[in-house]
């Protein structure tokens, strides 16, 4: 981007586009150009560990799936010589006439997702990086462990290509380090180091792996559990120390460190992996100037706690690591959240710029006729034809029953070939098509489009994969490959004969949402959905909105939590699209995505609500401590109780000399197994507040790992600077709270002294964790699974963090797991985006591969209902008997129901029993009659 002018709703963005020198529409991704290019280029995708050529593709699954030419290296571009690639490209895709382009885009909003930058090499130098070859970054190590990487997953030392025996991971490289300007914590390195260490152990079980942590910060959902398992299963050594430097001794690497009992240690390793942190993007400054947005003091995008996805400029939004270091699920969450915010802004212009495609009506009469099959055996240039005898396969295809047309196009996926296929379908009245070419995973949609364009149902095409799974993998055995190709074509034709047109079912959507829970997350989600133009019913269990936010007074960033709360409530109350029902719970929910009906109980009264989508934002609660003398003295309180006290005034601190805080009360294996993520920051926040109100008091914090991730690290550092004492304890030696006649004493083991100490305490603050709400009931009602910790389980930990296994139900806030206010708001927006998608579409389209139940054959046994992983099949009364019925909107076509049906009453669209049996029979080659 070179410029951004205008205002929210009407921006003009100037964009500079570099040429690829390869025409994307013509490129077939065959790789000939890379093979012939004389010019080596370091492969940045493989972290410079390998060499590629000027024309290349970053990796096999890259999108666009066409190659491009690295202009910096290309001889033709720079010196007007060579041109070898253009001569070898049989598709004629290489085009050196392409010029750089300047585009002006009219857009209503801008989303900034530039990601993160890399820590400067100068920072790494003090750890021997660049000087000693066996010091690598974690990014490089990632490529070494990857099966598709330069070493095919074999872990070797760069210096001698031998397998190392001892590896050390050094954490916090370029993070939590003010000397390099990065005072923040990068949040992700602890987890990725443990992951890389585990993967390394999986590849080389005899490896000795040590990780040097300051604190083990695995505070993500399920991360602590994963860390524990990894430590147990792989025997990874956890060493708590910061290693200041790396030296080389006799070709190996020497480390020295000081453990927290004050002892010095040293060790020799074969390889050192630097767990480098995430920096702000290199061009953050330039971007901030062009987009006119503010950055924070670390050059990340500056945002507010209650609006974590908005930059300082209206209409310009931010998501991902540019907003602050974060991991994949959080980036994905923010990305969805930012979509919701942009959509709130532009709701009135929805669908004004999108493109829709129309198709001719389906020729049903032709489809019903006897199969008239056309088979197209693709050369794919030399990709297939170089190995498989394509003409022989084509001629063989002619002998198969039902085949009326057989051809061998050079590139069946090219625009002209597609056109010709379409014409031939029409001319020969074909009603089934077999394409023997590449993989249906990548190309079936293309050929389905072709069928639709000539009025055939898209389900009437079948592909035989004779490239990816034949020619390419049997390059040395052309005869066998040709035989295999014939067999695959025969099997595909057998299936094609039995293909039937499939309806493209759609379901109408009730344009409204039900949001469960009126805390910060629930209100944010409700507001976003309503702002996007849909009605929301917000159900809150208690008598007022606010949830846990009511108990907060200020946030660490110095913002006023009460003001945030007030603003949210007034916006919700004022919004005409939101109806709030307090003192109410959901009694039952029936239906499926697009059409839910819920019973809301308010006291003894109930009412029905129809809605298209459901958002779970039911929150969680502060854990009620069962130990440390909680409840036995007014001077033993939880962090939230302390915050409430502080909000009322500081008089209770008058005589306070010593205040002790104890971390991980209830969390991390104390009573609940999960890490509550927030308590470390909460403790630091309250400690700083106490120090501010009463500077002469001593504050001691007993912790296991201080998990003040991201920018919260600043507050932690400030707390240390202000003299707050942090003492680490291990779970087998927890501090004890001892009540005496005159007061309270905390007894604990001091690691540095090596002995027990006693602190007389005026106040003991327990950092009680976050316990899940009573989710069991709702989990049953929604068929929404819970984690072993009792929080709701998302559909995919990384890629679908706000969806659950049930379609049309979304998840946000503490109900999903412990998280900060800022994270809750972002996640609520994300849930709102996902929830609004079906509402905005108005219809839910269903892939036609769904199951169908033959009502006559069904005996209503219910096996399918209980086995379906998607709750997509249910028993309902038909006449007098119960019969199974597929909820097409939820069905994913996995077929578990069909393979377990006692009466064979269930068939799968596109994968019927008959079709699969026909494929099996065709596989045998000989006449294999029904047994």
């Amino acid at each position, binding site marked *: 981007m070179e410029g951004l002018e205008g205002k929210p709703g009407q921006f003009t963005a100037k964009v500079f586009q570099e040429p690829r020198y390869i025409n994307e529409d013509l490129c077939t991704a065959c790789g000939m150009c890379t093979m012939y290019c004389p010019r080596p280029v370091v492969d940045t995708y493989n972290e410079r560990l390998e060499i590629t050529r000027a024309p290349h593709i970053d990796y096999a699954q890259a999108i666009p799936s066409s190659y491009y030419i690295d202009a910096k290296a290309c001889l033709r571009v720079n010196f007007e010589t060579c041109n070898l690639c253009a001569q070898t490209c049989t598709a004629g895709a290489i085009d050196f006439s392409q010029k750089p382009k300047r585009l002006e885009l009219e857009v209503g909003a801008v989303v900034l997702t530039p990601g993160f930058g890399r820590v400067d090499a100068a920072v790494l130098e003090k750890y021997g990086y660049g000087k000693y070859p066996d010091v690598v970054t974690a990014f490089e190590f990632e490529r070494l462990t990857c099966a598709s990487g330069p070493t*095919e997953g074999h872990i070797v030392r760069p210096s001698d290509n031998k397998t190392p025996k001892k590896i050390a991971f050094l954490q916090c490289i370029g993070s939590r380090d003010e000397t390099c300007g990065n005072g923040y914590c990068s949040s992700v390195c602890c987890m990725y180091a443990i992951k890389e260490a585990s993967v390394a152990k999986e590849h080389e079980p005899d490896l000795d792996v040590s990780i040097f942590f300051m604190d083990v910060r695995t505070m993500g959902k399920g991360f602590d559990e994963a860390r524990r398992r990894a430590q147990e299963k792989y025997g990874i050594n956890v060493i708590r120390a910061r290693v200041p430097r790396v030296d080389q001794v006799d070709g190996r690497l020497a480390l020295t460190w000081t453990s927290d009992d004050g002892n010095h240690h040293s060790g020799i390793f074969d390889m050192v992996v630097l767990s480098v942190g995430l920096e702000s993007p290199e061009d953050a400054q330039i971007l901030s100037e062009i987009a006119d947005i503010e950055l924070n003091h670390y050059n990340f995008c500056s945002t507010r706690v209650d609006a974590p996805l908005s930059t300082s400029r209206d209409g310009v939004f931010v998501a991902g690591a540019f907003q602050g270091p974060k991991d994949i699920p959080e980036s994905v969450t923010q990305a969805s959240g930012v979509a919701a915010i942009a959509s709130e802004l532009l709701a009135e212009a929805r669908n004004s710029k999108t493109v829709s495609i129309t198709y001719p009506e389906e020729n049903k009469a032709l489809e019903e006729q006897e199969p008239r099959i056309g088979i197209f055996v693709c050369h794919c240039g030399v990709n297939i034809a170089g190995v498989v005898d394509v003409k022989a396969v084509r001629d063989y295809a002619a002998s198969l029953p039902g085949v009326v047309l057989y051809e061998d196009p050079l590139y069946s996926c090219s625009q002209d070939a597609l056109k010709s296929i379409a014409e031939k379908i029409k001319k020969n009245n074909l009603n089934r098509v077999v394409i023997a070419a590449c993989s249906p995973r990548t190309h079936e949609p293309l050929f389905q489009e072709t069928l639709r364009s000539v009025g055939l149902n898209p389900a009437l095409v079948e592909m035989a994969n004779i490239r990816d799974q034949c020619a390419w993998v049997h390059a040395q055995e052309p005869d066998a490959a040709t035989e295999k190709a014939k067999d695959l074509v025969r099997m595909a034709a057998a299936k094609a004969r039995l293909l039937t047109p499939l309806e493209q079912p759609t379901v109408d959507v009730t344009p409204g949402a039900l949001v469960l829970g009126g805390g910060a997350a629930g209100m944010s989600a409700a507001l976003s959905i309503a702002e996007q133009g849909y009605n929301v019913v917000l159900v809150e269990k208690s008598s007022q909105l606010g949830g846990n936010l009511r108990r907060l007074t200020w946030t660490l960033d110095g913002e006023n939590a009460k003001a945030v709360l007030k603003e949210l409530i007034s916006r919700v109350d004022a919004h005409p699209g939101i109806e709030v029902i307090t003192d109410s719970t959901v009694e039952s929910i029936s239906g499926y995505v697009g059409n839910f009906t819920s019973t809301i109980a308010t006291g003894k009264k109930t009412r029905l609500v129809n809605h298209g989508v459901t958002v779970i934002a039911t929150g969680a609660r502060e854990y009620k401590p069962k130990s440390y003398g909680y409840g036995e003295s007014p001077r033993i309180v939880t962090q939230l109780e302390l915050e409430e006290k502080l909000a009322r005034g500081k008089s209770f601190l008058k005589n306070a000399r010593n205040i002790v805080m104890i971390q991980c009360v209830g969390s991390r294996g104390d009573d609940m197994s999960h890490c509550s993520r927030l308590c470390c920051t909460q403790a630091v926040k309250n400690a700083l507040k106490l120090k501010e109100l009463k500077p002469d008091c001593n504050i001691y914090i007993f912790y296991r790992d201080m998990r003040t991730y991201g920018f919260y690290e600043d507050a932690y550092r400030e707390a240390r600077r202000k003299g707050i004492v942090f003492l680490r304890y291990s779970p087998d030696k927890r501090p004890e709270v001892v009540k005496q006649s005159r007061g309270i004493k905390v007894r604990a083991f001091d690691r540095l002294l090596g002995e027990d100490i006693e602190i007389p305490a005026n106040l003991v603050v327990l950092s009680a964790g976050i316990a899940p709400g009573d989710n069991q009931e709702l989990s049953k009602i929604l068929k929404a699974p819970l984690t072993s910790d009792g929080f709701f389980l998302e559909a995919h930990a990384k890629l679908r963090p706000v969806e659950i296994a049930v379609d049309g139900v979304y998840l946000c806030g503490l109900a999903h797991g412990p998280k900060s206010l800022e994270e809750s708001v972002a996640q609520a927006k994300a849930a709102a985006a996902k929830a609004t998608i079906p509402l905005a579409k108005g219809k839910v389209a269903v892939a036609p591969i769904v199951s169908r139940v033959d009502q006559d054959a069904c005996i209503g046994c219910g*096996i399918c209902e209980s*086995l379906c992983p998607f709750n997509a099949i249910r028993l309902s009364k038909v006449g007098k008997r119960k019969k199974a019925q597929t909820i097409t909107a939820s069905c994913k076509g996995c077929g578990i129901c069909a393979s377990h049906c006692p009466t064979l009453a269930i068939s799968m669209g596109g994968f019927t029993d008959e079709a699969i049996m026909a494929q099996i029979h065709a596989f045998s080659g000989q006449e294999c009659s029904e047994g």
Partner: protein
Amino acid sequence: MIVTEASRQLLEDCGVDSDRLSLEWASAAEAPRFVELITGYVSKIRDKGPLGSSDGEVSRDTIKRRLAAAVKAAGARKPRTLLGNLAKKLSKSGDYSKEAIANGVKAKVLPAMRSERISHELRILLSEAPLDMKSLCTQTGASAEELEKIMAPLVKKGLISQKKGKIALVAGE
């Protein structure tokens, strides 16, 4: 996988070495693992030789006949119901260990699959020629006692007849 385990036990019941059926996992990114699995598997089958030649396998013809009957057995309502119920039970308990599945199938599903298989095979055999009890036993691999039990309902329904030690299909079936 419960279905795979049922298939495995049904194959063994037909005299097929169940190692010929393999269930493996390779995620989309695990091409090298996939190649390793396929290469290993093909060479394993190569070592075993053609169907019917591996250790413990019965003759190819017998196998084919039994398999023909087994396909019907695998499609029959009773064993399928039992299989479905087992799957239901295991999914409820969340116990997907190999042992739980293998034992469950063996105890709950195999007996029904086996008797269905034998029942169908019986009819295939008899459709060629009447046979005596002893040869039926050898052919199907069932004990006399087992056969009696399976034949009883067929006799009752008048589908087969038992005269002078010879068992025959009743014409018209």
